[in-house]
Every structure is written in structure tokens, then in C-alpha cells.
């Protein structure tokens, strides 16, 4: 009986895939492959995937993908059955599929020669060959809508010296993945032999704490396998690079591994489930298996162990790490982990701002801002980027990735340190613009908290426009900051800047053209002049004798008074103001509707032409071509197009136009 839901799932899934393939006029296994990949991409297992099929004698492949840093090459293959409950994937099947994938890797270059460039299979071979040159690891994925009877995974092997991992996603695993609700599969760790532990009685009902000592090597291997997924809840994953702490950790590991346990504070971990070895009295004496393992503190230690293990090639013999393990239900996880992190911290200061590092808003903002190039400030000058430091130290991490001197210089030139801004800066810019200078004056932490609240209440649509305009606010803020400096605001400069900016924005009805500021990467003379006008007036109100300036500036009363300063917009500025306030889309649905209708205005045939054009000219990457094809298929069949797909498709469309595509070309 327990199997019923799985059988149902298998039937539904198989039917859905067939319908989908029918609707899109796609081949069934290929459609299934794409479908699985979309699921896995969502939870971060795969990225940059391309679906393309080749099968020959002893060779079969359905596509490839790679990690963003191009160090991991993924190959996909699929076993799709029309009768998934009757068919079983045996160990021999699994082995055979993986062997065929590896065979493809071997033969890619000779296969490529038999196809012309615009074909998928040619691009598949070419893509794989290029990646192979730089990859440091190969992952083979097998997707199946049958259940696997294989008890064990194939042993990791190697391909021309590169380690090869096997990942099997059979029916049961897909089902778990789909139903677990969590964005990703929990990390499960087996300890063989079990590690001994000391369990501590807890008075909290759903929470127990266990102390244990983990072999350092085991931890390094775990990190190798799961990377940052292991540290998902750890806020300081990004803090490693510039910290001096891990240098110490590394030296200890290299020189005095035996003392590591004595010197290091160890790691704090959480898990949602554990299997213990119990002694005769039922006391927990060993840990055999952990489910949902997360290292919430000690990310630096873990990463450094990994570094020494991989880069310095030490076997970490004799290195032990103390582990404090908290078992709790997954519901409590999100609530309690930040507290554990905050309280257990004895190393770098973790601030509130750091703790919301993983909020969706900031992730999104970071992602989009990374794609934005600021226009050159001088004609023909270099284009630069504004660097949003979502987590403290990420600029340094990014910089350190460029190991070659030239590469680092290029990074510095493209991403000047002056153009990096942190989350607290972002909050400052936005709140000043929105007329909340008293909040800005309460300090970075409190201002940030207020900003977060607002974001939660009214989630803005984070798109390129939003990022550009927000950065423009920053440029405005910084320009006014320089004005305040000229007026000798001294130690109160921050307050004066916030108030002057706020009043200026308020008075102009937020009609200052942010897009222009972005385009020119500076504010106009009229704005600067107006700020010069306004600044002394603001100073008179904020800096009053007999008042404790910093406290006074924090009150809304102060803002009321500043708002009442008799001051009108100089004509020069008035002329260049926009007719209407700068708008930020908040209701995402409206925006999405708009994009969708734009997408639907583009004819089906035009998408098809675009796909053909892209294939022939190779102006777009294969993944992009496939998006165009997918949209055409969905339009033809009235399939649902998700908001993300709409956005991606329009991006592809715009890029194609940029690259010279025209549906009306002769």
C-alpha cells in the first residue's frame, strides 16, 4: 500500500510528459530530460543546461551543462519508460547508461566532425569539448521515470584524471524532490564507522543537542560534495577570503594538525534527523547517519579544511573537529538557525545586515546588478560595473577569484572599489530618496531593518530598471554628500546628507530623472546647485544648539521641521525634472501581464524564424535558441509560460534584435 502514491506519481508524471511532448511536438525522452533539468535548476543542482541528443553504438547522451565558474562539466542521459511501474532500472542498466555517457565524452570530438555547425549535436560536442579543457570535475546524471533497484551508486571513477561522479535521479528521488517542498533535497551523511558522541539531555521538546568529534577529512569531503549547499544557512560563507582567521586555521592544519582540535572552536551543525548507535542502557553513543545536515557556524573552518585537503593536498590525518550538533524539526530550522549563528559567534562580527544575506530581494538585486554595465563617463571611456556586496566580503572574494595579475587589474578597472556598495548603503540610498532621513539617521542596522520591512510589505519588481535607478539614487546621495562636505557638515555630514537628499527628493516630488543620472553616471549641475542652496538651510534645523544632534536627527519631528523649511525648486532644476515621479513597479502581476502581452504580440512564426536564424548564424547560445523554440511551441499549443520564462524569452528576443535579427528581412 505504501507504494501507491509513488505509482500514482509515476502515472501522472509519465502522462504529463507525454502530453507535454505532444503539445510541443517534442520527442518524449527529450521533453522529460528538459523537464527534470528545469526542476533541478530551480533547486540549484544544475545550471547552464543544454538539451541535445546523440546515440550511437555504446554511446548515448541527452545534453550537458556546466557550473557558473565552468569548473564542473555535467552530462545528462535519460531512460524514459512508457510503463514506469512495470519497468525497473537495474544496476546493470544504470551502469550501462553511465558508461555510455563516458563513452560520449571520449568520442565527442570525432562525432562532432560528422555534423554541420548549426546542428544541436555539433554544438553539444563542441560545448563539451571546450568545457572539458578547463573542467576539474565531471558529473554524470541519469534521469529516469522508473524506479531503480540498484542499492548502491556506482563507484566514483575518473576520466583522463578528472574525478567523475554519478548522480541518479530515478522515480523515487524525483518524487521525493517534488513532494518534499523544500527547495532542495536534504543532505544525508553516513558515518561508517559511526562517530562516537555525547548526547545532552534537553528540556526543549523538539530540540536535542549532541557533541561529537568528526574526522577533518570527512568534513572536507562533505564540503567537496555539497559545497555551499552545506552552508546554506550559514551567513558567513562569503566572509572567508579577507578574514585573517582562516590563515591561522590553515597554518595549524599544515604544521600542527594534532593540535587542531585544541585550537579550533569547531563547528556548529544542525540536522533534521539522526540515526544513533545506542548502548545497553539506551544512551546515544554514536552517530551513524544524519539527514538534512547543515553547518551553521564554522563555515570558514570547513572551507579551510577543504582548501588544505584539495589545494595543499594534505590527507588531514589526525585532524579532528569538534562538532556541536543540534537536532530540530525542519520547521524550526529557519527560526532557530539565525539565532545559533548570532549567539555562537566568536569570530568575525556577524551583524544583522549579514544575517539577511540570503533574502530573496538581495539575491535578486545582486544577480541583476552583476549584469549591468554602467555607461562610460567619458566618450569612449571604459564601461564599469557597480558592485553590490550582498554579503560582507563578497567583493574581496570576487577579486580573489582573479588570480592572475592581469585578470585582477582588469577586474579592478571594471569594478572600481569606489563603485561597490553594501546592503546598508542600498538601504540608505532608498530610504533617503523615499523621504525617511530620520530612519537613515538611526544607523545602518536600524535603517536596514526598516528597509527590509518595507521590502517585505511592498516587494518591488527587481529588474534592470530597478537596479539602475537604485544605483542612480546612490550616485545622487553621494553627490549630495560631497555638497555637505563643502558646507562643513563635519561629524554630522551623514545626517545632513540624508536630510538634504530627502528634502530635495520630497520637494521635487521624486521627479529627478534617475535614468539620466544612470546614463551620465553623475548628477546634473542643476541638482548640485539646488543641493548647495538647500544644504545650509537643512543644517540650521538639524544642527541646533542645545539639542543632541544625533538623537534629534533620529526623530520624525526633526524631519517634519526640515520639511517645513521654506524653499522652492530653482527654475534651472525645475526645467529638467520629469513630468511624473519616477515609478517603481510594485505589483509584479501587472508587470508580468505586460511582459506576457508583449511576448504574445510577437508572432509565433517570428519566434520560429528567430530560432532558425539563431541556429544558422549561431548568434545566440544554444540554450537561448532553445528558449525561442520552447516559446514557439508553447504559443502554438497554448501552454503556460511562467513569468521567468517570459522574462528570459524577451531577453533572448531583445538580444536577437540587437544581434541583427529581423523577422522582416528579405
Amino acid at each position: 500500500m505504501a507504494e501507491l502514491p509513488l505509482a500514482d506519481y509515476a502515472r501522472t508524471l509519465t502522462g504529463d510528459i507525454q502530453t507535454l511532448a505532444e503539445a510541443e511536438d517534442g520527442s518524449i525522452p527529450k521533453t522529460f530530460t528538459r523537464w527534470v533539468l528545469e526542476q533541478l535548476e530551480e533547486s540549484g543542482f544544475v545550471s547552464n543546461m543544454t538539451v541535445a541528443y546523440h546515440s550511437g553504438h555504446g554511446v548515448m547522451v541527452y545534453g550537458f551543462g556546466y557550473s557558473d565558474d565552468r569548473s564542473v562539466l555535467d552530462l545528462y542521459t535519460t531512460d524514459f519508460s512508457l510503463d514506469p511501474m512495470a519497468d525497473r532500472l537495474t544496476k546493470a542498466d544504470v551502469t550501462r547508461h553511465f558508461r555510455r555517457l563516458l563513452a560520449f565524452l571520449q568520442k565527442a570530438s570525432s562525432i562532432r566532425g560528422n555534423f554541420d555547425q548549426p546542428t544541436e549535436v555539433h554544438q553539444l560536442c563542441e560545448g563539451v569539448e571546450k568545457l572539458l579543457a578547463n573542467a576539474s570535475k565531471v558529473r554524470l546524471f541519469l534521469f529516469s521515470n522508473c524506479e531503480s533497484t540498484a542499492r548502491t551508486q556506482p563507484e566514483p571513477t575518473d576520466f583522463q584524471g578528472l574525478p567523475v561522479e554519478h548522480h541518479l535521479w530515478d522515480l523515487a528521488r524525483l518524487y521525493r524532490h517534488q513532494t518534499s517542498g523544500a527547495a532542495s533535497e536534504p543532505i544525508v551523511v553516513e558515518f561508517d564507522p559511526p562517530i562516537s558522541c555525547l548526547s545532552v539531555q534537553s528540556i526543549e521538546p523538539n530540540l536535542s543537542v549532541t557533541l561529537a568529534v568528526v574526522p577533518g577529512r570527512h568534513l572536507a569531503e562533505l564540503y567537496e560534495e555539497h559545497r555551499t549547499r552545506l552552508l546554506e544557512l550559514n551567513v558567513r560563507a562569503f566572509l572567508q577570503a579577507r578574514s585573517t582567521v582562516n590563515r591561522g586555521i590553515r597554518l595549524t592544519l599544515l604544521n600542527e594538525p594534532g593540535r587542531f582540535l585544541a585550537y579550533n572552536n569547531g563547528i556548529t551543525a544542525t540536522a533534521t534527523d539522526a540515526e544513533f548507535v545506542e548502548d545497553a542502557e539506551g544512551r546515544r553513543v554514536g552517530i551513524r547517519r544524519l539527514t538534512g545536515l547543515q553547518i551553521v557556524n564554522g563555515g570558514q573552518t570547513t572551507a579551510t579544511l577543504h582548501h588544505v585537503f584539495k589545494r595543499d593536498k594534505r590527507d588531514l590525518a589526525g585532524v579532528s573537529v569538534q562538532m556541536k550538533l543540534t537536532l530540530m524539526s525542519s520547521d524550526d530550522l529557519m527560526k532557530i538557525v539565525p539565532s545559533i549563528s548570532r549567539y555562537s559567534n566568536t569570530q568575525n562580527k556577524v551583524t544583522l545586515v549579514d544575517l539577511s544575506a540570503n533574502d530573496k530581494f538581495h539575491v535578486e538585486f545582486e544577480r541583476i546588478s552583476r549584469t549591468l554595465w554602467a555607461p562610460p563617463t567619458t566618450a569612449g571611456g571604459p564601461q564599469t560595473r557597480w558592485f553590490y556586496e550582498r554579503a560582507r566580503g563578497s567583493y574581496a572574494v570576487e577579486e580573489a577569484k582573479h588570480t592572475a595579475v592581469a585578470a585582477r587589474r582588469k577586474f579592478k578597472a571594471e569594478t572600481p572599489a569606489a563603485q561597490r556598495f553594501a546592503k546598508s548603503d542600498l538601504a540608505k540610498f532608498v530610504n533617503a530618496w523615499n523621504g525617511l532621513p530620520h530612519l537613515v539617521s538611526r544607523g545602518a542596522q536600524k535603517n536596514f531593518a526598516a528597509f527590509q520591512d518595507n521590502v517585505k510589505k511592498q516587494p518591488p519588481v527587481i529588474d534592470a530598471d530597478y537596479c539602475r535607478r537604485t544605483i542612480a539614487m546612490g550616485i545622487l546621495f553621494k553627490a549630495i554628500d560631497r555638497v555637505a562636505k563643502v558646507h562643513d557638515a563635519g561629524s554630522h555630514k551623514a545626517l545632513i546628507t540624508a536630510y538634504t537628499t530627502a528634502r530635495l527628493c520630497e520637494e521635487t516630488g521624486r521627479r529627478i530623472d534617475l535614468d539620466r543620472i544612470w546614463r551620465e553616471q553623475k548628477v546634473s549641475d542643476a541638482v548640485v546647485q539646488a543641493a548647495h542652496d538647500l544644504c545650509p538651510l537643512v543644517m540650521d534645523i538639524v544642527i541646533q544648539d542645545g539639542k543632541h544632534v544625533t538623537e534629534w536627527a533620529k526623530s520624525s519631528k526633526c524631519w517634519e521641521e526640515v520639511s517645513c523649511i521654506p524653499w522652492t525648486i530653482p527654475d534651472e532644476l525645475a526645467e529638467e525634472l520629469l513630468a511624473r515621479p519616477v515609478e517603481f513597479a510594485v505589483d509584479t502581476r501587472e508587470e508580468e501581464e505586460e511582459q506576457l502581452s508583449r511576448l504574445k504580440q510577437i508572432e509565433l512564426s517570428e519566434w520560429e524564424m528567430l530560432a532558425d536564424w539563431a541556429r544558422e548564424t549561431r548568434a545566440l547560445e544554444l540554450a537561448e535558441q532553445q528558449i525561442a523554440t520552447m516559446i514557439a511551441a508553447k504559443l502554438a499549443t497554448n501552454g503556460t509560460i511562467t513569468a521567468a520564462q517570459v522574462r528570459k524569452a524577451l531577453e533572448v528576443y531583445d538580444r536577437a534584435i540587437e544581434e541583427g535579427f529581423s523577422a522582416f528581412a528579405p
Partner: protein
Amino acid sequence: MIDEALWQELEVPQTNRGRSTRRLFPESGHDIHVGVSHPGRQRMLLVRGGSRAVDRARPLLVDLRETHGLSLSCNSVSNREFELQISLTAGELREVFTPLAEDIARTSKDASSETVLERAVRRFAYWQQLMRSVGSQGLGREARLGLYGELRYLRTHLLAALPTRAAVEAWTGPEGSNQDFQLPSVAIEVKTTAKKNASTVRIANERQLDDRGVGRLVLVHLALDERRGGLGESLNSVVDDIRAAADLASASALFESRLIQSGYLPHQRDLYDEPRYTLRRADLWAVDEGFPRIVETDLPNGVGNCAYDISVIALEKHRTTTEQVTEVIRGTDG
């Protein structure tokens, strides 16, 4: 249709990597090409089909065995288009590849868009089967003997009586017809034996002597002496005789392709200089009223593939002569 000249045209070196292709059957709705890759100069047959077609063909691919010198792969060209690529990977099969590609192309041409790839793969598998049955030792003793008999009859009796092209066309056995030779007026089944005193003739199935829709049917029984060395004639020499005749009549390609379908593969020619055969005796019988035989309509439902022996003695009153048969072949018997 596909010939050496076409291949050589496609093989002209190109500056770019890629492949030169030529579409076959311009009138067909299917994309079927022959092509040559550059710079590897691999010859191939390319058959394209849509998603439905590939999903139908895919189960066959899984069980396909490997054949030395030939490879078959299936690839996605774009989201909805797939290509079957059959290529020649070893030079020794060069001559086999041309008729093979042509045969697969012809078979696929008439398929529906859903079955085009499936048909191509099935036909490929049929060729694999053929080549496997021939093996590296060439045709087995019985098969050689049978082929020699058919060719000898073709040369001696059909070529003498008919225009060369018509004679070669009449040799339909290699394509799997019920009798070895089929003409508008007559079908001829040739049985060859090397036994000393053959008193029976073995009939392979119930359709072999079925004269429905055939008009007349003639059974030819050749008794040969088979030995290594000696003054007899080898398989190769009868092949060469016919080749010489066919060449003049531009029936050469057809003859070569039928030869290959019989399992006489060009690169194995060396195997067929021995043994040599000498005709000891030829018997001809007209399969007519009262001829002892089993035909399909005689069999109870469910019985099939029925092989049986006929005693030669019982055939005496059906005996006919070469002259009579030749007249029938010529269509001049009235």
C-alpha cells in the same frame, strides 16, 4: 542513383570543416541525403525525421548490435528534428556501402513521416543481419553452391534468351521473392545439389512452388560435382562472366547490388576462387496440374514454414526441356 561518381563529387576536398551532402528523391517529402564529412571523408546516409519518428525508432536503437565498419547514430538536429546517420567507418566495406545506402534510402522514402526512421533502422538491421550471416569466412558451403547454381542458370539460360538488363532484373531471389527468377510469363526456382545420387529435391517452404499469380512455374534441379582444384568453374568466374555482359548493358549496378544481397561481398572475393563446380546433370520440371507439392492453401490454419522433400522419381511425367523453357522465357511459346 547512388554511385561512385556521386561519392567522388562529394569527396572533393573543402576548405571548411563540415560535410557535403546531396539530397536524394527531390520529389519525396522526406529529407534523405547522402553526404561526406570533411576533412574525415566519411561517407554517410542521412535520414531525417521528427520527434514522433525518433520516438518510434528509439527502442530499436537500444538493441542494435555493432557491425564492424558500419555505424549508425541518432542525433538531434534541432528541437524537433532528428537525424539518423549511417556511416561507413572501414574502407573494406566501401563497395557494400553504396548498395546498402541506396537500399535503405529507397525503403525509407516510401515510409510515412512517423515511421521513416523506424523503417531506416529496420532496414539497417536487415543489412547487419545479412553481413553477420556471411561472416568473415564468407558464404557457407550450401549458400555458395546455391548461389553458383542460380548464377549459372542466369548466365546460361537467361542471358542467352533475354536482353541483359531484363535477365538481371529477372533474378529476384536475392530480394527475397518466392522463386529465384521471376519473369512476366514464368517463375523459375533453381535447386542445386552436390550430392552423388540425389533422389529428392528439398523445397524450403510452401510458397516456393505456389504458382498463384505466376502463370507458369518451372523447377530446375542442378546436380554438380564440387571439389577443390580441378577443371571446374569457380563462383568468381561465373560472376565475372555475368559482370562482363552486364557492364555492356548498364545493368551492372543492379547486378552488383543483387550479388551483395545474396551475401557475395566484394571485399571477400578472395574466398570464392574455390571450390570449383562441374555440371553433372540438369533436370527441368514444369510445376503444373498434378505436381506433387504443398501450397499455402493446403495447410491448416496456423501451420507455416513448411519444408518438404519431393522424390525425383515422382516427377518424371512433369519433365520439360531447356528448349521449351527457353521459349517460355522468351515469351515465344505461343
